[in-house]
């Protein structure tokens, strides 16, 4: 599913102009098309043989294993590869051709095939095609020229496949980063109208913005009056981060919520003082416990420890 989606998005990006540009980059011209047409029958006739050569070689390779784990995937890959070998000699390298290439690339990416492994097997495929062309042709020089033309198309393919593989990898990285961001800024309600916002890890400007955004919306959604922001898990606070915190506190105040910042470690406090950051407008308390107590006081809560007798009646 994910792979399919990616092909969709890439497809949207790869316009006719883009394909033309890629063709120009590998130097694919009209005379190449003519030469490829001359060897078309040889390639098409031996398509099955070439497909086998590609997959047999891949099977021997150490990194080729992922493709052979699942029979259905392997079958699909074989099918696509065979289509490709026929298409590579067809002389028509438009959008459908590129599309087919990207489908195969997405499949490789899905099973986790390495770029190096793919390149190795692809080279082997080209070699077997080249050998066949030269064998079936009387004129070696001419056959070589034809093969070189075919190779231009092959490089066009490699460009596309590598792009797809890189694209997929980047997408995975982005997704993971997004996931980390999502889980790293929870805004929790622990009492009526009291939120805590534990911040862990590094705060960059993007995360700070998201954090503030989350908090402000949570204040609205939970009708919070007091927020305890705990930065015990933030290793380093520089002036930029401190500024973000001050801004967040100010924004929360505009929405009628008081913010208590807790968990400033000794180092953080020292560095803030050394930096000359003015935190006088921010209500700070040493640790989370103290912060919660202060917040409860603001909200008018009083914590009472029940004695043994009343605890027993409560349980009953």
């Amino acid at each position: 599913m994910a792979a399919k989606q990616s092909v969709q998005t890439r497809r949207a990006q790869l316009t006719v102009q883009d394909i033309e540009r890629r063709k120009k980059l590998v130097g694919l011209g009209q005379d190449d098309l003519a030469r490829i047409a001359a060897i078309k029958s040889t390639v098409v006739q031996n398509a099955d043989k070439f497909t086998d050569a590609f997959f047999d070689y891949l099977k021997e390779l150490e990194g080729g294993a992922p493709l052979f784990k699942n029979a259905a995937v392997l079958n699909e890959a074989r099918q696509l590869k065979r289509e490709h070998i026929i298409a590579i000699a067809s002389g028509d390298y438009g959008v459908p051709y590129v599309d087919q290439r990207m489908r195969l690339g997405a499949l490789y990416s899905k099973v986790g095939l390495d770029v190096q492994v793919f390149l190795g097997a692809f080279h082997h495929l080209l070699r077997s095609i080249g050998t066949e062309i030269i064998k079936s042709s009387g004129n070696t020089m001419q056959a070589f020229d034809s093969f070189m033309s075919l190779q231009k198309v092959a490089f066009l393919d490699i460009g596309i496949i590598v792009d797809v593989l890189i694209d997929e990898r980047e997408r995975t990285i982005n997704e993971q980063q997004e996931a980390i961001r999502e889980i790293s800024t929870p805004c929790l309600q622990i009492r009526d109208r009291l939120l805590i916002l534990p911040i862990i890890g590094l705060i960059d400007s993007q995360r700070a913005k998201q954090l503030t955004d989350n908090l402000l919306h949570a204040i609205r959604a939970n009708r919070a009056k007091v927020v305890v922001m705990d930065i015990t898990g933030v290793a380093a606070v520089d002036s930029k981060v401190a500024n973000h915190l001050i801004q967040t506190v100010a924004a929360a105040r505009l929405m009628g919520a008081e913010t208590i910042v807790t968990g400033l470690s000794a180092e953080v406090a020292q560095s803030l003082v050394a930096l000359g950051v003015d935190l006088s407008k921010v209500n700070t308390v040493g640790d989370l416990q103290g912060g919660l107590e202060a917040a409860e006081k603001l909200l008018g809560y009083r914590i009472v420890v029940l004695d043994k007798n009343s605890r027993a009646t409560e349980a009953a």
Partner: protein
Amino acid sequence: MPVPILKQGKVLIACIQAALTDEDLVRLKDDLAEGVGQHRSSGVVIDVSALDVLDSFATRMLRSIAQMTKLRGAETVIVGIQPDVAFAMVQLGLVLENVQTALDLEEGLELIAARAKERQA
């Protein structure tokens, strides 16, 4: 469009319905200054929840309303600032210093009631 000012007990409620021109804001200020004395109000609540922009002029006006009503014996509370508006204001440095803010009208009224009680005590 002028802002309607409602009287609820000892509190005046100004509910801003749509984006205001600068003249409207000045007029709101004048009306409130007048109204606080006329109705002997102890509090003013200005609801800005319908606004998705609060520029520097509006902020300045709100601040001067708060200072002015205080001089006439009434506390002003700004209520209903939207999350995005709050963030934008902070980024632009438009912080409403010395002005009370609350989440919504209910909160604002509660705050004024609490203040009144404090004063009586």
